[in-house]
């Protein structure tokens, strides 16, 4: 566990540095706000409407599909780490086809899922 302590140290350093930089630029820079300067930038014309509007549902769909596939990718990582050991260790060698076959079955399911999403048109972004 001792190897994980530097994470805490660098977190403190990084947060400190970012905070210092943000405060520094607040103090060192000049500050003369005008009404135009504080408006949202829209190529020099008065902003039309607000940015707090509804967005395309595509973004949510992509996020959900990502979640599903990412969980599957996370499941692959421990399998891949153990795989070379299963191949080389005589105690597990007899199980290697089972170990391989099960994951291939899982990959096929993953692929079918991708094909399903594809056929449903979730991956189509251009309007037909």
């Amino acid at each position: 566990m001792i190897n994980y302590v530097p994470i805490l140290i660098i977190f403190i350093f990084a947060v400190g540095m970012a905070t210092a930089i943000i405060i520094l630029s607040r103090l060192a820079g000049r500050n003369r706000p005008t009404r135009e300067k504080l408006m949202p930038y829209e190529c020099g014309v008065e902003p039309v409407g607000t940015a707090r509007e509804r967005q395309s549902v595509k973004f949510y769909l992509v996020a959900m599909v990502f979640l599903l596939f990412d969980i599957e990718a996370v499941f692959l990582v421990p399998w891949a780490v153990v795989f070379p050991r299963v191949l080389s260790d005589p105690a597990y060698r007899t199980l290697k086809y089972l170990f391989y076959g099960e994951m291939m079955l899982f990959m096929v399911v993953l692929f079918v899922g991708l094909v399903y999403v594809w056929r449903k048109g979730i991956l189509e972004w251009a309007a037909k």
Partner: protein
Amino acid sequence: MIDQLLGWAIQILITLFALVTAVAYLTFMERKVMSWIQLRVGPNRVGPWGLLQPAADGLKFIFKEDIIPLEANRWLYIIAPAVSVVPAMMSLIVIPWGSEIHLFGRTIPLHVTQMNIGLLYVFALTSLGVYGIVLAGWSSNNKYSLMGGLRSSAQMISYELALGLAIVSVLLWTGSLDLVEITKSQSGTWFGFIPRWNIFRFPLGTFGFIIFYIASLAETNRTPFDLPEADSELVAGYHTEYSSMKFALFQMAEYLNLITAASIGTTLFLGGWNGPGVEQLPILSLVYFVIKVLVLIFIAMWIRFTLPRFRYDQLMRFGWKWLLPLAIINIIATATLLIFIR
């Protein structure tokens, strides 16, 4: 205990200092490479060959006016650059920059810490970087920024899948998530002259590297995948409203992520710090690592100034319909190959 903590603190400070300097000079390198490709001279006024340009830029950033738009969500707007730069800095501690050096009678490894989940740690942190971009885009209350932030998050999560699956094939060969172990497994040669780097495991390793490299370009929002910034349509995307050092922090995060991506690519596929003569002269390992990382970064710049930008639907199609299936096929092929040859 105190001794070890102090050692880590010093190592981290040196790493951070070196990396922030490297970021400053990467912006300089980018401008020089751009100007050479476009047959211009580039920055050459500040110092010899313009070498002091990054320092001048830094000073200028500090003294610029710090604007917070009236309609912005104030606190989120202020912390967004920090949220984006902190994970970018934190992923630096597990990267093995070199083997180990002997200094003042002690052996110092050229990595801050060695974790058995090093690679997962880096991936977790690079995913966290999305939050900074989304927060910046949303809190600016600007339509361009919002579009930039949304596009960026959709793009990064799409290509993260291909990236995550491309590294699984490396894990199948090395059987470790520890970056130091992965580097050590690539030392030596095949047939006496081909280095045992994963990229030379033709064709699957080469293929994995190409998938990894393309996906990492998209992860770091670089051309041809720089849709979140897309200067010509979204002005500057999520950092349209940012000025002064807050803007500089986003730039810093972007270049730090580029360095991280190039370092991980080097460690996983290009043999890390391995090279001829590393056992005799350990400091060479650091030199090899830096050269390999610079080559990867140079290729990224070269691509940026040569290729046009993708359209958004092309970007999503490429990520989901090409890279993702190819990465899955790569894993299946690697596992099948391994089960037959071992």
